[in-house]
């Protein structure tokens, strides 16, 4: 393996961004495994393809659009029956602490 591509600290940061909490053991293990994968995929760095356009869709076909017509809505009771916690027809969550970022 070449130089380390991802540090334990970076792994911890990424986990936090993804709202995952890792034990020290997990963090050590994942850091090594992610580093090994990044080291393998780094083979693409050698490719001189800056001139190519990125592909975001395998299809190279034109767009089509949805007519603005109201369709079926879900049954609220059926939906709320699947929710962990509800109150007054709404989804109940612990304090959100602040506005969205």
């Amino acid at each position: 393996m070449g130089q380390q591509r991802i540090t334990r600290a970076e792994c911890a940061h990424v986990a936090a961004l993804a709202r995952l909490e890792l034990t020290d053991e997990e963090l050590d293990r994942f850091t090594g495994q992610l580093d090994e994968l990044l080291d393998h995929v780094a083979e693409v760095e050698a490719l001189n393809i800056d001139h190519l356009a990125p592909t975001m869709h395998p299809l190279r076909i034109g767009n089509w659009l949805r007519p603005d017509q109201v369709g079926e809505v879900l049954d609220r009771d059926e939906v709320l029956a699947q929710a962990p916690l509800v109150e007054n027809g709404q989804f109940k969550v612990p304090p959100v602490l602040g506005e969205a970022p």
Partner: protein
Amino acid sequence: MTAVEIAAAVRSGQRSARSVIDERLSAIDGSEAEVHAFNLVTADQARARADEIDAAVAAGKDPGPLAGVPVALKDNLCTRGVPTTCSSRILEGWKPPYDAHVVELLREAGAVFVGKTNMDEFAMGSSTENSAFGATRNPLDPSRVPGGSSGGSAAAVAAGFAPVALGSDTGGSIRQPAALCGVVGVKPTYGRVSRYGLVAFASSLDQIGPFTTNVADAAAVLDVIGFPDHRDHTSRLPDPISASDTLDDGVDGLRVGVLAELSGDGIAPDVAARVQAAVRALESAGARVAEASVPSAVYGLSAYYLIAPAEASSNLARYDGVRYGLRVDGASTPDMNTATRSAGFGDEVKRRIMIGTYALSAGYYDAYYGKAQKVRTLIIDDFASVWERFDLLVSPTSPTTAFSLGERTADPMAMYMSDVCTVPVNLTGQAAMSVPYGVGDDGLPVGVQILAPALGEPVMFRAAAVLEASLG
């Protein structure tokens, strides 16, 4: 009895759908405990549905082209009111309030749903060992894996639990388990089958397809589900196909390329030998065979292991404990989200979410995700030039036959390598399928992969039918 034979018998009243499903349910009673192909068997609904079909036939109504055909569904296909878990704790017990498009189509066609099959959690894996509900075993050798991630569906068909199963293929998750279980598995052209109701892993790579015991059944099922839909913006509108109509047209004069980059290094000799035999069979059936080269194909795995996790990291953000599925309490919503996701996801899912989050994060996007999307362009362009000279390509589906349980679980990279032959096709969106072609030195099945250009399913099936016939 094949699916096509079952449908014919049920439609003509020669055989009751009820007797068909009872037969399969008793097969499940026989060996499901050992195989563990299913997360859920919906026996009562299946019997009731079969009785409806029989009633329809008795009433002279047309019960549809797949009348009475038992179908197993991968547990990432939404079924209204029936638990859909993706083999994850985080979705345990979730009952979708809607049906996937393919589920609607199969029901209209008269299919009878047997249950939901086991899989690698959120389709992330190649052995069906990453399931929160325990691994599935290969029916042909219980010490071996069935492949994955659609291992439950492949095993269900191989074990005779159902003549047809649906799976999803993001990097080989239909073709590789089909190969390891000795059944037919099809990854249709991206956009051919609507993804509406397929729980997303990697949106630009996922595609739904069938497992069957034979080529004709696969064509019949694809004719039913290969029907684009206005609820999937990436559906190819408007062009349903028929793979069945031209099934027997043979390969005389077809230009078949042997894909060099996927046939050399890292391919087990016994597997390579079976692929050579398949090539000779096509040749003797009149195909013009030559070596074909897609130099960039070798970079497929690297591009895949950046693109798929990146999309997954975003697709799986919604499992936050607010609207459905698991919630582990926390003092605040952020704490609750974190506690829920940490407890609800398994290691492989966490690993991929982290890779993907990293590949998209500020400062790394261009080096990883951005670069991978350009590699994807390179591979698409390379294939495009190959399609100017060939109608079809052939390669192994899997570098090896079925490996042992636990053999690769400790080593993610070794597991990832299982997808080396199948991944490029997901990046390009082309059609491909795996056809069983004899066995390797260990007596376990070998699958041959047939690749076709986008929308090339009819030609692809002609070659598959020739290979099947050549085995006698």
